[in-house]
């Protein structure tokens, strides 16, 4: 536990990346969307999810070697990094929920802008549901990014191709199973959040198993 906290502190010695970068990116994409106007949802909110994926990749690719040099084990590095990513997801989930509430209350920032209300996803309900869903979604992206980074470190480009191929096959298999695809489409917001949470746990376990033999 102690080392987990140390790893999290290590990631935060240069806090700008974690604290400011997602906010800055969100502000930029929001400004572009607002300038174009219109009530159509264009998916700008996805930028923060993509960013969390990228942060997960970076924390393994860039931060692992010095982390191990500082005496962390792979397991404690993984646990500490995941802990920080999930905590950041909690914070940014709240930011999304708050901004969504403001958007709704101000009639789309007074301009009918629809940025934070995602119509077809469970990101359109009460603030706590939005918080929960975006928390789980951001966590998934971060943890998946870490796993991706670990696969890259261990097996390089060929490993990544195999990793992605397996995922495509898994998705195809799920959808080809009669009725399963349709079943997903009919899930409620909360059930969908549950599925994302399940995927997060799968990625968390996968990354944990993969980092055990990573070398620097």
């Amino acid at each position: 536990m102690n080392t987990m906290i140390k790893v999290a502190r290590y990631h935060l010695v240069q806090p700008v990346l974690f604290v400011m970068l997602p906010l800055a990116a969100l502000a930029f994409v929001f400004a572009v969307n607002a300038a174009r106007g219109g009530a159509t949802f264009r998916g700008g909110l996805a930028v923060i999810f993509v960013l969390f994926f990228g942060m997960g990749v970076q924390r393994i690719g860039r931060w692992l070697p010095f982390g191990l040099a500082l005496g962390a084990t792979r397991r404690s590095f993984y646990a500490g990094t995941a802990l920080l990513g999930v905590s950041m997801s909690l914070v940014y989930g709240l930011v999304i929920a708050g901004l969504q509430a403001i958007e709704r209350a101000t009639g789309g920032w007074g301009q009918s802008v629809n940025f934070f209300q995602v119509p077809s996803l469970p990101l359109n309900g009460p603030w706590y549901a939005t918080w929960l869903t975006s928390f789980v979604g951001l966590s998934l992206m971060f943890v998946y990014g870490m796993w991706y980074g670990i696969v890259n470190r261990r097996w390089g480009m060929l490993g990544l191709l195999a990793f992605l191929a397996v995922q495509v096959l898994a998705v195809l298999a799920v959808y080809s199973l009669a009725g399963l695809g349709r079943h997903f489409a009919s899930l409620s917001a909360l059930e969908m959040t549950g599925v994302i949470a399940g995927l997060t746990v799968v990625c968390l376990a996968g990354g944990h198993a993969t980092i055990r033999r990573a070398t620097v």
Partner: protein
Amino acid sequence: MTPAISVTGLTRRYPDQVALDDVHLTIGTETITGLLGRNGAGKTTLLRILAGQEFPSSGSVRVLGSPPAENQNVLRRLVLVREDQVYPDFQVYPNFKVSHALRAASFCYPNWDAGLASSLLKDFGLRAGKAIKSLSRGQRSALGITIGLAARAEVTLFDEPYAGLDAVARQIFYDRLLAEYADFPRTVLLSTHLIDEAAALFENVVVIDRGRVVLDTAADGLRGMVTTVSGPVLAVDSFTQGRPVWERRGLGSQASVVMVGQVSDDDRERARSLGLDLTPLSLQQLVIRASGGSAGAGSLTMRTSA
């Protein structure tokens, strides 16, 4: 007493080569050991395995009594300073600075000495606010040395710690290492190519060649153990008769022979009367020969216990 480092039958195979081949090694606590050998001999692989950064293919490794890999209890008492250390430096803003690296080290190492770290930075002329990506090779080495010494870890591993450092900075490193070692004794294993320069530091010397330990001995035992005898052919032959000889060179009536074994006072007296020159081999020359230089591969495998 448990040795600080104990390695038996350690082998590390890669698809294209064998980096370490049946290595046996024991290093006592509170000693300074030189780890010497050519590029690609296996020094870095050995140090990475000792630090739990790499895994053995077979064999057993114990550091402070336990296998180091994924062992928090060992790793928090160990530091490895690598020549090719990767820091979390980015190509774009924000910069990861020297001060960030030191701050991270300060809460990871229980014995961290912040005063020592800042005085080392001052000696090396390294600014804490400098971005790591803009450091020169020598400055990166200075940062590694600072972390390695200020960590005050029970097991301190240096892999080519002073690449790119100038002579003055290298002397600072030697002086600080010895002073620190006196204040806070620890087990130091140092790999280097500047053998004669660092020779005075070493209590023990380990030479690796092509993944094998070819020499593992106390440095004191080595001094004067191998001697070059030169002079008239007949006198040289009569002097070296019955002694192990590594190399023999002749030039007309003169000969030069590299002879193994301590030279006694009687031997010296005899050499003088025969008109022979006795020159002890320096550590560097010894390592060159032990690494299969002019003595030929495999002709020498010395294991002296001191």
